[in-house]
């Protein structure tokens, strides 16, 4: 409703992708608590790519290992696309190897969160990202 009020900018839109339903629901709650708008929540990489291209959200939250396209693949595609490359990308991963975090940052992710993540912390990160983006233009 907030976006109808003049002078108050529309909340940032979010596309979330994770193959685990419960994690997706958890992400949805964190997005809501951060005051962002969840435009789409999908269960695989291909659906995520379709949603991103169609909705052009401000923020994407991607699971690293998903069927179809991985979070890393999607991040690479986003950064390579002129229309999408300024999106804020947040990766979630259940992998604990040292180099997985590095590979996430290598493909241009803004944030890399290890599972299990705290919904409180995810909400805080999202709020912070939102305020940073709103301050920019």
């Amino acid at each position: 409703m907030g976006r109808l009020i003049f002078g108050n900018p529309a909340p940032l839109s979010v596309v979330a992708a994770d193959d685990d339903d419960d994690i997706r629901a958890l992400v949805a709650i964190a997005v809501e608590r951060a005051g962002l708008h969840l435009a789409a929540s999908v269960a695989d990489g291909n659906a995520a790519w379709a949603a991103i291209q169609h909705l052009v959200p401000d923020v994407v939250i991607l699971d690293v290992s998903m069927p179809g396209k991985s979070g890393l693949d999607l991040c690479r595609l986003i950064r390579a696309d002129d229309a999408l490359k300024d999106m804020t990308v947040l990766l979630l991963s259940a992998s604990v190897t040292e180099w997985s975090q590095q590979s996430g940052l290598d493909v241009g992710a803004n944030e890399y969160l290890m599972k299990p993540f705290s919904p409180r912390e995810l909400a805080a990160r999202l709020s912070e990202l939102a305020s940073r983006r709103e301050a920019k233009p």
Partner: protein
Amino acid sequence: MNLARIYARVRADSPTTIVKQIPVATFFLLALVIVILAPMNFVDNPTAMATSMTIAGFATVLALYFTSRSMTTGWALVVPALDFVAIGFLRVGTGTNNSAFTALVILPIVWLAAEHGRRFIVYSALGAALALLLPVAYDWHLLLDAPFMVRGLMAPAVFAVAAAVINELSRQWRRRADSASREAAERAELLRESVEHSQQLAESAAKLRELERMFRGLWGAVTEQSVIGTDRSGLIDAWNPGAVKLLGLSDVETEGIRRIDEFHLAEELTSRSKELNFPVGETVLNPGFSALVEPTRLGNADVREWTYVGANGHLVPVELAVTARLTESGDIAGYLFVANDVTKAKELSRLKDEFVGLISHELRTPLSSILGYLELLRDEEGVELSKNQLHYLSVAERNANRLLRLVGDLLFTAQVDSGMFHINQTEQSLDLIVSASVESARPAASTAGITLNASIANGVMIRGDAVRIGQASDNLISNALKFTPAGGTVTVSVATTATQAVVSIRDTGMGIASAELDQLFSRFFRASTATKNAVPGVGLGLVITKAIVTAHGGELGVTSEEGMGTCFTMTLPLIDAIV
């Protein structure tokens, strides 16, 4: 001609006592027949005649006895002696000087004279004299009868000469026979030796052939390992069926033609050569080969992974053992390269890593949900949870976290096992890392009623991974707290030696039995004091801690006394020492 055998026959044929006695006995019988059947009267003394026959008969019986005892000399010579006496009486019985049977005396003379030794010449002469002079016993007047006495003394003298000749002849024959026998024995010995020698030769030739067969069989049977032999310069001189299978070339195509280093990845040889500081080794012309055999040439066992390049350029990862072939004097004659194909092992290890990664991912995902939703429950706005509900939540959270740590530890040890565990080596101050561990352990220590002391030197710089070193010191401190009863003390210190940083964590806890100390760092091992006192844990903490310390080039040591306490010492190289 086998002289020994001839001599043996002669010896066997040498006459027995009875054979020698037979002529004497025969002539006595003949004399008896003549005396009985002759028309004129030969016998002028029948008593003497009877005595003579009796003695001759007795002598013949004795001869039979001695023959049965296989006696031919010694006491058997009583027989010819009795013969002399019998002949003496025969002469007396048949007319003394006129006796027709005097010539019989020659038989015992020959018998005795042929015996071994010159004394028998004398015995035979004495015997002859006895036989010829016996009539004196009947009529002493005969001593005055000149022809009788001349005959009685002259004849034995002549017989003595004849006996001497016989004795000498038989002595010579005997000597010849002895020397022939000795020679024969010597030749037989020589023959035996040469036969034995040739048998030995045949045996060792058979053994050699057997060894050769054995070696051929063995060589042909090794089909799963590649065995390649080279001379000292790397030229291939042996190529087994395993090498044929692994590299796709036959022995004919390689032996004496190709070099071992042609089957190695050139980059690997170059980098190994660089690692060894370009050893001159066996051949200056071929640094790759020198690098390959350098440790072996210096007498060290060398097993490492290499990559073989097969006939079609296909690459095969191998574990290669290089050994030297030695000459009899112990110099290096060449090298043997025994290679195991580790393609499958590598594939297995890759699959295992994948599996571990997958399992870890699959376990962490539900844990993420559990922990996330528990947090939501705790943070639910507008809902005030009761004290009990908060307690239940914290128990659930604590256990979910415990499970999470366990999954992390398992994954970590799997990584250590597969060599996938790498650390970020950056400059770190060890004192800060350990201080942080001590501070984070303080709440747990005070809850457990344990005094936690710290004595930490400043500016202890090491090269390593701050997260991992932190994990190691957290592990050691939390272990010390777990194993120390309330009222005890845990002391953490960081100190330095010239080259080492030494972190020690000493507790006044229950200690570890000395027999268990060397198993302490094996996976899933739990000390008996831990199980007895129901200290929680699965036996991975020390494995991980040790792996971390080792990966940093350090050492983890422990001393302990049951009931008194334990001291773990983590030693890491100081940064100055590394430079």
